[in-house]
């Protein structure tokens, strides 16, 4: 059982971090998944967490979401009480209309009106009465986003929310998510394995490797186009190296070399 000290009061000053993780460890039996992790996330900060599949990035997110009751471990987690999770699958209740899915369990005044407004924000005005099964994958994920945002979360946890979408839909969803997060200013932790997605969306990128945060780097893209591209390329190289992957451009060169060698050998 996870023995966490969960502090449920929100820090008053916005300079204070809204998420505080101290010495967080999690293990499945003998295998250590998370090894004494420390992390602070400030209000409005968009953090992307990168890692291989099986690196423990989802375990980390589930620990923050309070969904890891069956996992052994210890450490301190302080998260704001208003937190929303967007899962990889849209996870809509198939027997409820789009609107009822967004309003499910929603507290406060005029829940349905707020749900309608948020659906408009994600570009689904007029689809309130549709069944989730009649929506495309991208639309379903937008409903899930609306369901998360209508609760005005101080922390938004997203576990590879675009992983199951096609490339074009994913790009559109990136823009939508960025706009919504700028507007609502929640702290965001986006778990992804896509380096470009992380650079494109986040203010800060983390790499989780063997249970430790090995890279913690602000994105800080400069204004000028050339400088911007250079910064993206440099960051990309750094992150891919941190993940133990060679950059695709280097890869292409290496592959060409190998191919040439193979041809030579055959001849």
């Amino acid at each position, binding site marked *: 059982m996870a023995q966490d000290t969960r502090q449920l009061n929100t820090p008053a000053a916005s300079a204070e971090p809204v998420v505080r993780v101290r010495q967080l460890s999690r293990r499945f039996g003998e295998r250590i998944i998370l090894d004494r992790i420390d992390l602070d996330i400030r209000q409005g900060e968009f953090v992307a967490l990168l890692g291989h599949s099986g690196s423990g990035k989802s375990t980390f997110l589930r620990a923050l979401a309070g*969904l890891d009751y069956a996992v052994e471990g210890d450490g301190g987690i302080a998260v704001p009480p208003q937190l929303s999770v967007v*899962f990889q699958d849209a*996870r809509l209740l*198939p027997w*409820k209309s789009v609107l009822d899915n967004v309003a499910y369990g929603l507290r406060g005044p005029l829940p349905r009106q707020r749900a309608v407004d948020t659906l408009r924000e994600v570009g689904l005005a007029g689809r309130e009465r549709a069944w989730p099964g009649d929506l495309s994958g991208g639309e379903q994920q937008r409903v899930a986003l609306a369901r998360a945002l209508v609760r005005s979360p101080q922390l938004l946890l997203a576990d590879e929310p675009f992983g199951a979408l096609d490339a074009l839909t994913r790009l559109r969803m990136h823009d939508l998510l960025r706009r919504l997060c700028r507007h609502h200013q929640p702290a965001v932790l986006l778990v992804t394995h896509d380096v470009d997605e992380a650079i494109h969306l986040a203010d800060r990128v983390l790499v989780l490797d063997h249970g430790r945060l090995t890279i913690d780097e602000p994105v800080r893209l400069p204004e000028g186009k050339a400088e911007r591209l250079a910064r993206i390329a440099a960051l990309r190289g750094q992150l891919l190296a941190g993940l133990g992957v060679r950059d695709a451009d280097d890869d292409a060169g290496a592959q060409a070399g190998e191919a040439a060698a193979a041809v030579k050998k055959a001849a």
Partner: protein
Amino acid sequence: MTADTVTPPLPADDALARPAAPHGTGVRRRSRLGPGDPIAYGYAIGPVLLLLIWTAGSLAGWIDPRTLAPPWVVLQTLAELAQSGRLWDNFETSAWRALQGLFWGVLAGVVLGVVAGLSRLGEYLIDGPVQIKRAIPTLALIPILMLWLGIGESMKITTIALIAMVPIYIQTHDCLRSIDNRYLELSETLGVTKREFIRHVVLPGSLPGFLLGLRFAVTASWLALVVVEQVNSVSGIGYMIELARTYGQTEIIVVGLALYAVLGLGSDWLVRLLQKRVLKWRKTLDN
């Protein structure tokens, strides 16, 4: 490798360029593996065919009227019974018994199924006894119910309820347990109460199972009726059949059987209609 197994060469270009088999412009295409398009009143085809075979057999003399009265005699008897009021009285008694038994059976099945599905303790307490009940034939249960409850209406209704309860319990419980765990996780992150969770996830999620169970239960309640009405009864369709047997009146027996058939088919159709309305959200082979 022999020459027979060699992959055939690619077709020539002109074969690829040829238009494919004509796709009719106005023709509605259909799924190759689906059950096919629905036909209006298609459900009536099977029963009507049965009726035709019966009529033809009686006309041709293949069916001895002492074994099975021909349809026109049955219709005549039906008219006579209806005119004398005997039919309606018996029908009313039977329908009221089945309905009451079904009501208590459905109520008990749903409550027990949901309780056993939602809590471990409930399952440990309830599931065993229900499975035991399921293993005991109803006919074997009737003697003890007669000793406990007498031979009156309460014995009959209890028997019907006990029989109708089982499929409702099993289907509801099973469907409830197979609700995706991901919805539980989602509900926890949304901070909903147990009550909201039951109302918005558990009950609608187990509804398909409940409705399937209801189809079994409705038919089972009519079957149970037959059994209880032939034991110490002075009214009802079963009693009418039992009496006719004593006098060797096959046409009355057939009227009774046909009545049961119509009631069973009608109530099943009603439940199906309900199923279609309530489960609109489902994408299945059916729609």
